[in-house]
């Protein structure tokens, strides 16, 4: 049992019970993705028409490997938060909504695990 009054327990948390954490994480990941996505496009451009071994050599560099990993993590985190809002806005049935919200998380974990595994295999 908490000694807090009911109002103190909910203050600032709002209807979602998570307060501004979703909003904040969306903005922080967006901020990270500004330089990371620009780097990603420049990187992709430099590898146009490259042989596989050139791509491997590029992604094996520690700076490039780390930036690629950061891009994947930040992009997928930002994606989960964004798609979650779209689902919450347009899907109103409780069952389909929960199913889609869970699928959204699973999709991100799957894509993230696949990308990071491939990156580790390339870089090491």
């Amino acid at each position, binding site marked *: 049992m908490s000694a807090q009054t009911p109002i103190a327990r909910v203050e600032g948390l709002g209807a979602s019970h998570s307060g501004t954490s979703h909003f904040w994480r969306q*903005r922080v990941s*967006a*901020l990270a*993705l*500004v330089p990371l*996505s*620009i780097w990603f*496009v420049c990187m992709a*451009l430099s590898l*146009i*028409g490259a042989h*596989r071994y050139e*791509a*491997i050599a590029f*992604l094996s560099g520690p700076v490039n490997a780390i930036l*690629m990993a950061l891009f*994947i993590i930040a*992009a*997928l985190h930002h*994606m989960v938060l*964004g*798609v979650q809002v*779209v689902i919450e806005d347009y899907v109103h049935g409780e069952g389909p909504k929960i199913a889609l919200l869970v699928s959204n998380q699973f999709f991100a974990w799957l*894509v993230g695990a*696949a*990308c990071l*595994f*491939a*990156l580790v*295999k*390339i870089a090491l």
Partner: protein
Amino acid sequence: MAEQARPTATSRPISPHMQIYRWPVTMATSIVHRATGLALAAGTLLVAWWLIAIATGPHAYNLFSMVARSLGGQIVLFGFVWSLAFHLFNGLRHLGWDSGFGFEVRTANRTGVGAVALSLLAAIAVFAYAYLEKGVYI
């Protein structure tokens, strides 16, 4: 009172009709921001495919390159690059609003048109560089 007949037709204007309603710039960019966000979510599969293809071997990598170079692949990649560019520029507008800047209607309209123009320019520049400078398709 409760059984008052509902008018079946009215001469009053009803709420904005999609076909005659002029979309404000801010509304259009908001909708396109969502659409490009969803497109980019699907686009993560392309990034995953590319990385897995590099990790797997020459055959997998050649398959990816072949599909990327095809007409359909080029169209999808242009859509991906433009979506990323628009989501980036329009995302900067959102970060500005979140910091309390750019709320005036004139400013919001201008930055909206700017985001559309810059994103198209950026996507065209990326592809122009790919075709002209590199001399090859993606």
